């Protein structure tokens, strides 16, 4: 049996993820996150007496803080396992990846542990986020 044949058999053998169920869970959890975020924005806009645009910042901080606390309590991995992309794609996924790395490397020191490992997973989001932001900002500045 050559490698290709083996790969073909493997593809038939491996269990298929329940795509529809996963997408549905992600859709509803993601949607619920959106609703919560929207409520938070209105909440902050009201109590701090700021515009809705300005209220986005405290909303993000709140969501990140909640995610980090849940990660620290060991609950977020269960939520993430259930909801998949529903919590991975929003800011919660980013906060969880940073926070989980920080917890993982805490015992290796503040500099060589947390400092150098905290962006291990989230680093590529930052790198390509900054690079693409610079490119699009340049295009916008000169052409629009």
């Amino acid at each position, binding site marked *: 049996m050559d490698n290709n044949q083996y790969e073909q058999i493997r593809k038939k*053998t491996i269990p298929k993820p329940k795509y529809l169920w996963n997408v549905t869970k992600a859709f509803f959890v993601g949607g619920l996150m959106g609703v919560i975020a929207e409520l938070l924005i209105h909440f902050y806009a009201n109590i701090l007496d700021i515009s809705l645009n300005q209220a986005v910042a405290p909303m993000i901080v709140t969501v990140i803080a909640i995610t980090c606390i849940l990660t620290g309590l060991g609950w977020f991995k269960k939520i993430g396992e259930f909801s998949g992309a529903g919590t991975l794609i929003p800011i919660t996924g980013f906060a969880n990846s940073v926070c989980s790395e920080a917890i993982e490397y805490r015992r290796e020191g503040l500099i060589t542990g947390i400092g150098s490992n905290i962006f291990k997973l989230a680093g590529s989001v930052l790198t390509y986020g900054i690079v693409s932001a610079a490119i699009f900002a340049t295009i916008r500045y000169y052409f629009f």
Partner: protein
Amino acid sequence: MRTYKFENAYILDAYTLVGPLEHHGPLGLYYDYAIDDYYFGCKTFEEAEMKMMYTSIAKILEQNKIKKSDIDLFFAGDLNNQLAISSFNAMSFKFPYLGIYNACSTATEGLLLSALLTDSNRFEKIMVSSTSHNKVANKQFRYPNEYGGQKRLTQTTTVTGAFSVIVTNQETNIKISSATVGKVISYGIKDVNDMGSAMAPACKDTLITHLKELNLMPSHYDMIITGDLSAVGTQMFEHLLYEEEKVTLANHVDTGLMIFDVNKQDVQSGGSGPSCIGVVSFSMILKKLREAKLNKVLLIATGALFNPTSIAQKREIPCIAHAISLERVL
């Protein structure tokens, strides 16, 4: 020939220790000791893993009233970078030490080497230990433990456990009768989340070589026990055996599927790790051999010999499998 028969290789005793998930699994009652906390009273998971191996060694020495100085050689291996866990324990016990690494097949590798050495009658008692810790392995090979992503269905769960075995040239009722050294084989699988499929060809090769070189039928053994092929790997292994050798096994079990309840516990495709085949074989299987419920078993431990760098550089996964057979005598 890469199969060896032994006259003077016996199992004196074994000690197994497992983590909480394994303890609540189907074989929970067979293990000698179970920890209910992944930290095992330590500050880090690595320290906990060291303590696990330490406990298994200390207990087996105590149980058999053997002094540290009676151990002629210590073979040990684990999944931590550069065998840190084994080396720290070798330092604690001051045994003459040979660290070994063949990923999850470290267990049978150690037993095979011990049997070769005791068979020469130059060594009287050799200690073989191996350990793996779910959280330590996750940190090293997968995502951080608290990372909230979905796991693949083909992925295995590293077993938290440690075992120690003393191999001796003095006659006991469990004999290591033969062993086959594996060759590194790959069928080009690059998916690190499907190690079962990657390891199946190596497992098949070792089994067939073992049977051919000793001129045996698979039914010679009461049980052919493979170590951590898990659900997907077992299917691929049985498929390969049938397609390439026209062999079907009626007596095959996989420890990756025995140690956990794959349907009820959140372990995806099953268990893996150097301690997977060790804790199952030296708890339940050893007990059944001693009670004469089994007479001859073949243990084939499979190992995926990749490292995170080779995977990141998109190399295939080289795999190996070593086999040893245990026989009840007297």
